[in-house]
């Protein structure tokens, strides 16, 4: 016998997702005890929650979270802006691509997080080196996505508008730019998740503000719950930026047939 489900796949998926979350939280709360894992290795959920309350009261948790969020947003915005500008520039001009691509590739291959100590030497223990690392990391996925999209625009589409006597600027604004938007947003989604990596590395290397600072502080104190709280907060900050991008994408690409990745 075959049972047909009346619920939509979305509702079904959402319920399953919620069940998984509850299972995970339960495992986290009671798993370590059941497996005799000491709480300085994996602290149960309740201890982590208590720790976050303590940090709120004694460690200016809100301030540090605010600093990190601002750094992530600044790094993400500037990095994607630069990435998009270079992507379009290189996409429109073959000469620029040939001239600049070896250097951009070299910078791409270099591990960006390794620049963090250098930037701190230059700019001190401020927010700027962290933003700079984030900019560097966000830059490439956005640039590469835009460049590939511009190169991939259907040649017949370009010929169509050329036959209408379109100027170079018209070809760009009426065809190439809008055609690149889905790829641009795919790049921005990746960039959103990477911005928080850049900022965290910058904060870990030095300074006395930001969630990354709390993370290394907790580590120094052998305070495992504090480390857990910091990791969760960093994940939430990254998620916030990602959802912002996804929300804007849904608005801008409203003409696209179906949302990708389960509507995220």
């Amino acid at each position, binding site marked *: 016998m075959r049972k047909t489900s009346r619920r939509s796949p979305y509702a079904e998926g959402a319920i399953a997702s919620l069940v998984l979350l509850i299972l995970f939280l339960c495992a986290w709360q009671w798993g370590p005890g059941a497996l005799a894992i000491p709480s300085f290795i994996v602290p149960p959920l309740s201890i982590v929650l208590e720790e976050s309350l303590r940090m709120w009261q004694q460690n200016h948790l809100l301030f540090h979270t605010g600093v990190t969020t601002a750094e992530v947003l600044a790094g993400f915005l500037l990095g994607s802006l630069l990435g998009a500008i270079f992507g379009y520039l290189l996409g429109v001009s073959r000469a620029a691509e040939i001239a600049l691509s070896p250097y951009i590739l070299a910078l791409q291959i270099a591990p960006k997080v390794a620049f963090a100590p250098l930037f701190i030497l230059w700019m001190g223990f401020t927010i700027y080196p962290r933003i700079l690392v984030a900019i560097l990391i966000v830059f490439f996925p956005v640039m590469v996505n835009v460049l590939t999209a511009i190169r991939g625009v259907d040649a017949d589409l370009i010929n169509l508008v*050329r036959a209408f006597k379109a100027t170079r600027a018209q070809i760009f604004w009426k065809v190439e730019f809008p055609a690149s938007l889905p790829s641009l947003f795919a790049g921005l989604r990746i960039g959103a998740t990477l911005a928080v990596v850049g900022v965290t590395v910058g904060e870990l290397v030095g300074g006395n503000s930001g969630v990354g600072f709390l993370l290394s502080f907790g580590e120094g104190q052998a305070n495992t719950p504090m480390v857990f709280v910091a990791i969760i907060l960093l994940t939430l900050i990254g998620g916030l930026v990602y959802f912002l991008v996804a929300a804007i994408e849904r608005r801008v690409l409203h003409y696209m047939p179906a949302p990708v990745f389960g509507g995220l």
Partner: protein
Amino acid sequence: MMSRLEFRNLAMEFVKAGGRERLAALEDVSFAVLDGEIVSLIGPSGCGKSTLLNIAAGLALPTHGEAFVDGEPIRGPNPHIAFMLQKDLLLPWRSIAENVALGMEIRKNDPRETKRKARALLESFGLSGFEAQYPHQLSGGMRQRAALARTLAVDPSVLLLDEPFSAVDAQTRIILQQELARTLKNARKTALLITHDLIEAVILSDRVLVMSGRPGRIIDEIAIEIGDRANPIARRRDAKVAHYVARLMDRLGIGEAAEGTTRDTTRGDA
């Protein structure tokens, strides 16, 4: 009658990618399409039909010879000509009305007039009520109609149609052919139609030109003498169609090629 589109001794050579070898795509192509005429171009794949179309659209310059539209030499894209391809090439981020307006918008026509014209054209193609829809919401036939409306919107004197209906299903194709024939007649437009469909070439055209394999040359010209060009459905029923199609098949060597494969299959079975 004056010729709208004329090719004089066109030849086109391409340099093969990487090598120094040259590839001749067209050789000494000369013909004219007269005012109000529909001429079809038929030939084997790779015979340079699309190259010819690109030259006419001003997107490519011939190696030798010259092309003229309305008596002016074609040196680049120009307002006398618009083309339509097998792919509808509708921009997915523009509504149907905005897509139809694309050419007029690029030419910086008055926005209000552009809107009005797009609306009127969509209405004449039975697309009223779909102005605000996006291309992915329409069927293939409707999208080709919108593409044709966009081509007509810039009011070209010559339309270049490159296999415009080869991507739609057979029944929709018959309907679209009918609409195209009526529209071209009513608007008194001149058209050069490239197609692989021999029947389509015969029932839509005043004349059919046959091209050879690469390098493409014009090897035959057939004047279609069946009445009422604006009604291809009626033309399709005419007994003379079979005669024209047979002649086209002979000229293209289609019969012989098929004979060869049939014989081979029989041998394989035995």
